[in-house]
């Protein structure tokens, strides 16, 4: 089966620190997989490598068989990879609607001339995409008004806007960096259901960085474990949970992970 995403021996160093160390990773389309690991394991750095924010020092990253290395983040987004950020990065002084429309940036076709003389093409496109944005708002279950400024929303709602904004580009692959961080159990359950719907209803492949084991165990078909930048285990949630290296990686640092043990 052809891989949607393939990482070959990817390495990233920050000065003397090896944040990601010769990581191999493959992903078939239509999967939901998780990346877990203690704080500072290199999970976010891995996302930053895939999305082009960092360039790998070594190794190869292929998306649909084509190399992503050397492409700018905006070009990678245009290829069909969207993401959310661990610490929410919304455009605070823009409305919910505008945030989502910015997420659709790669899909606008109206030229500057269309914009200036407001051709039917411009109006039609603007209207269509605004309607689609409203659908996305409903899809992620946002209660806030589309005209609310993003920064005025409560935390949980902001997370939803960020997800809607990432979906707006109609990605093939979405990278979610700790989407349930800071959420209460009810919100977490809601988000978990939502992530499953991304794949089931929209057909989007999902990579998830997650700390809450309940979420990881609940929805991921495969789990990759990073520790000190290295991949130390990979497999089904059940396999990973029993893996002695994984238990050591967590317990060795005195981190209580009741959900695993």
């Amino acid at each position, binding site marked *: 089966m052809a891989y949607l995403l393939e990482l070959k021996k990817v390495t990233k160093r920050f*000065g003397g620190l090896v944040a990601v160390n010769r990581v191999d990773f493959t992903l078939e389309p239509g999967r939901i997989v998780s990346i877990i690991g203690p704080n500072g394991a290199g999970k976010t750095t891995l996302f930053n490598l895939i999305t082009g924010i960092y360039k790998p020092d070594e190794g190869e990253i292929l998306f649909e068989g084509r190399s992503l290395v050397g492409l700018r983040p905006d070009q990678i987004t245009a290829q069909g990879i969207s993401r959310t950020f661990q610490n929410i990065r919304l455009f605070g002084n823009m409305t919910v609607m*505008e945030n989502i429309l*910015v997420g659709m940036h790669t899909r606008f076709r109206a030229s500057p001339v269309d914009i*200036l003389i407001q051709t039917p093409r411009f109006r039609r496109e603007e209207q269509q995409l605004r309607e689609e944005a409203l659908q996305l708002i409903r899809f992620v279950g946002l209660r806030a008004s589309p005209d609310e*400024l993003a920064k005025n929303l409560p935390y949980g709602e902001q997370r939803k806007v960020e997800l809607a904004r990432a979906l707006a580009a109609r990605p093939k692959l979405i990278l979610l960096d700790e989407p349930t961080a800071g959420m209460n159990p009810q919100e977490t359950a809601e988000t978990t259901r939502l992530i499953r719907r991304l794949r089931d209803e929209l057909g989007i492949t999902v990579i998830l960085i997650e700390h809450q084991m309940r979420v990881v165990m609940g929805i991921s078909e495969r789990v990759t474990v990073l520790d000190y930048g290295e991949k130390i285990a990979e497999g089904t949630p059940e396999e990973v949970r029993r893996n002695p290296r994984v238990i050591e990686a967590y317990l060795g640092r005195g981190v209580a992970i009741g959900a695993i043990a």
Partner: protein
Amino acid sequence: MLRAKTMEWVTQIRNGRSIYLVGVLGYIVAALLLMNWLSQPGLRDAVWYPLVSALAFAAFLGSLLVIYYAPLAGAVKAILGLAILLVLLPILGVRNTFLLEVATQVGIFAAMALGLNIVVGFAGLLDLGYVAFYAVGAYLWAIFGSPQANIAFGTNRFPLEPEWFFLFLFLAVGVAALTGILLGLPVLRLRGDYLAIVTLAFGEVIRVIVNNLDKPINLTNGPQGIRPVQRPPLFFKPWLSALGIRLDDPTLYALYFYFLVLLVIGFAIWLARRLENSWVGRAWTAIREDELAAQAMGIPLVRMKLAAFATGASFAGAMGMIFAAKQYFINPESFTFMESIGVLVMVIVGGMGSIPGAIVGATVVTILNLQVLKGLSLMLNKLRQAGVVIPIINFPLSQWPTQLEPAKYERLVFGILLILMMILRPQGLIPERRHRMELAEALGREERAEPEQLPVEEELPPVIPAPEVRPTRD
């Protein structure tokens, strides 16, 4: 609760619209009467005349603001505004061309502020060398629209005929935009402070080049400047006389430049608004808000920043050219760092990112500098000549040092204005739409507490200062 009250209020206003129309008209008539009264010849010599006439003109221009804020139908507002700009002001201006001169200068700065607002307000790129593009436009026409080009190229083909003016207006737009792109290409990869410093330097470099390019080939005539600069053609003069309107050439030119500037402003507003409400404007704002996230949304940073830079620069280029033709004479002194700062102050005072704000900011600052400070200086001179002594401290005004003339307080005024704005109204006189919403929101919320932000782990901690820490690639 508060919201319901506001709604009630709004409907009341809607129903009582005619009262507001009467109010607005009353204001306009009052301002006109005041200006008419001031135009009596006998008053000109009064000590207070310069200051009061400056304030009266400001009050008259203020009627545009009154119209803008009045709860009237859009069409009514448009008619009133156009009547003032296209009819009343020109009529007043024919009686006193100085008013036209001031209005034109306000207009030139307003168009520049609109352009800089795209760069600084929309896209969040701090450009401290904006005047460079103004200089490019001005010198483009000054060189070819004067005998200067003969000296530089050893011909006698120049100055170009007035008819070339309009072709050159487009050229000035293009050349300024191109200069913006050429400067932007290396510079726009820099962030924040660095961009500010490099653009500042660029502005100075252009001025120094212009100041020194009288040798080896004399292109700009150095510090002496270029004179006379060709004016645009008075192609409509026969039409006017056919209509029985007879005006002398200086008045005609004053009117001409006034309308020309008005036309460019109209175009600038139209352009800025259309861009603002499209994917282009949203991409600019996204870059201003969070560059990294913007790029992750698929926005090509360098290309969009270049577009903002070039658009802003093109406004300055057009205005520079009109300025050169209007002044008849230009030299490097018109293009100092203070001019860049001045336009920036206009944008900040008006409200960053706000189109009406840029215009109001330009008006306030220009009137303050051009009229109020000058008026104060004139007043002081008159008092000095009259041998007035400040009472309590017994200080004879004749000993007031000329260095301390109010007309020289421009920098002080910028400083005080900025400080006052930062303290009293950091979002500007007419805040950007989004900031206005935020204010409304704050009012609507009453005392409901802000939702507590959960502390989240910093995503890209610059643990080790490696060159990769900043994603500078594009």
